[in-house]
């Protein structure tokens, strides 16, 4: 027993607040928790627990936002709505929307990748259109409606696109994921409205509810770079939500025969 007590202490020292909260939310306490931690790897945890996670666990605002700096250059007052809530901010005119969201409103879901419009990690929706928050000056957002990854979940339930990304393992390090999901959600609407892309066969014919081929999905998601290369799974996740049909992950384990063949090759 002594050994276990020691382990328990160590466990608490090693786990972050978030991890502890996740385990508490899953109802795992004491010896059950220890057994659980020994048995599962982090990777299988994410798949197994997908349905149990609530959105607040996956994206929640910081509890305390930084205070306003004492001195601002070229101060601008701007008021805009983020995820349905209106905010009034006084900012340095240079502040990007991304920095305003992350540093002033504590919404750290939107990620700063390249900060030059080349990676898409900062993608948010402004007045319903997906845009890059790193190249948007916050000052230009007066009266605009911004939706970030934090605003996609409703009443504690994840957006179907968030669920699909989890189910199909559409991320590895996850840094690009909020932007990928925002982009995917906006894309659903673009397809519904019949917006064409460079690879659309004949866009002189106007239609709505475009059915997107894999080539179309790839072209339309090309503004969101993922360096882990989770693209195949992202396409799969998008297809499931777009078609409304449940898809199983496209990979499967190699058969014994295939394994043998590979070993002998």
């Amino acid at each position, binding site marked *: 027993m002594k050994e276990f007590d020691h382990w328990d202490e160590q466990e608490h020292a090693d786990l972050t607040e978030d991890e502890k909260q996740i385990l508490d939310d899953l109802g795992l306490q004491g010896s059950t928790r220890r057994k659980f931690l020994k048995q599962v790897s982090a990777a299988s945890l994410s798949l197994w627990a997908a349905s149990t996670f609530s959105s607040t666990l996956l994206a929640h605002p910081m509890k305390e936002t930084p205070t306003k700096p004492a001195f601002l250059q070229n101060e601008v007052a701007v008021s805009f709505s983020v995820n349905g809530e209106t905010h009034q901010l006084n900012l340095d*005119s240079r502040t990007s929307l991304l920095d305003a969201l992350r540093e002033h409103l504590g919404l750290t879901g939107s990620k700063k990748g390249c900060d*030059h419009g080349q990676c898409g990690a900062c*993608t948010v929706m402004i007045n319903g259109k997906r*845009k890059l928050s790193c190249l948007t000056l916050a000052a230009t957002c007066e009266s605009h409606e911004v939706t970030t990854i934090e605003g996609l979940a409703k009443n504690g339930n994840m957006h179907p696109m968030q669920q699909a990304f989890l189910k199909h393992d559409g991320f590895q390090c996850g840094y690009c994921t909020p932007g990928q999901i925002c982009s995917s959600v906006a894309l659903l609407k673009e397809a519904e409205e019949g917006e064409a892309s460079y690879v659309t066969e004949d*866009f002189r014919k106007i239609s709505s509810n475009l059915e997107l081929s894999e080539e179309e999905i790839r072209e339309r998601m090309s*503004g969101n770079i993922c360096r882990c290369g989770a693209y195949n799974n992202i396409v799969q996740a998008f297809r499931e939500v777009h078609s409304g049909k449940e898809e199983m992950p496209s990979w499967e384990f190699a058969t014994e025969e295939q394994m043998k063949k590979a070993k002998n090759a």
Partner: protein
Amino acid sequence: MRPFQYTKAETAQAALQAQATQTSYLGGGTNLVDLMKEDVARPERLIDVSSLQYDQVSSNENGGLSLGAMMSNAETANHVDIRKKYPLLSMAMLSAATPQIRNMATNGGNLLQRTRCPYFFETSMPCNKREPGSGCGARNGMNALHAIFGYSDSCIATHPSDMCVALAAIGAQVEVIGENGKSRKIDFSDFHRLPGDQPEKDTVLEAGELITAIHLDAPVFADNYYYLKIRERSSYAFALISVAAGFQLNGGTITKAGLAMGGVAHKPWKLREAEKFLKGKAPKLEHFEQAAEIEMAEAKPFKDNEYKVEMGKKAIVRALTQAYERTA
């Protein structure tokens, strides 16, 4: 980023009056804000013109359509009338950047985007376009992405836009208003400049002038069109070479051709000789090849971009063939 004053203009008049030295108009910001972060652009004042009411597609006196300068590239490319009547323009615009950037970028801003020459972006390198008189790093440097037509001793950069290549092929006028509130129209082929000894000036716009509209000529090439964009990856990259090709057919003969190239000059490069040659000819491969030869004979490449001559020929032929196959 250096400090700047920000003002939002509610009317064009207010925008024009607020003009002063070291002032830039801000549209979608996809290029300007990036250049400011890189310390390449250093405006002391920004006038946000993005909500001025130049945001519609409307009919014009040429029998064509006019594109509001503040409309986004995405809205323009996907506008029902543009897709139907000017599919070459839609196709070119949809090949550019990404959906996020097209949702932000404005039509006026697209015309004013700066070169992607790496020497222009890297402030530790000489660049006559960024800092007149400092020299050109590209001429004897890494010039694989540079011009093969119309360059000068002081600058060999290329114009990055896809939209502008299509506009050069179709024919358009740019309407601008100046400080006195008077408007003037500039033929599209005169709008962008060749570098000469003033490469810092991309266009013929005078200080303080604001683009309000792009007027398209009566619809042409609605059936035979293709925008071919050759790049290092199949999406989200600037063109090494692009070709906007369109022609009109009547009884098996080309009655009018519109051709322009991107990635080869300081401005969208109109292929006038090829256009002339194709008029009255049958749309056949050998004619396409001859047109390409004629046009590319004038190319003068550098050490790293010789490939652009052969690629240019092939691209012209390919774009014309694809344009022909559209209706076949």
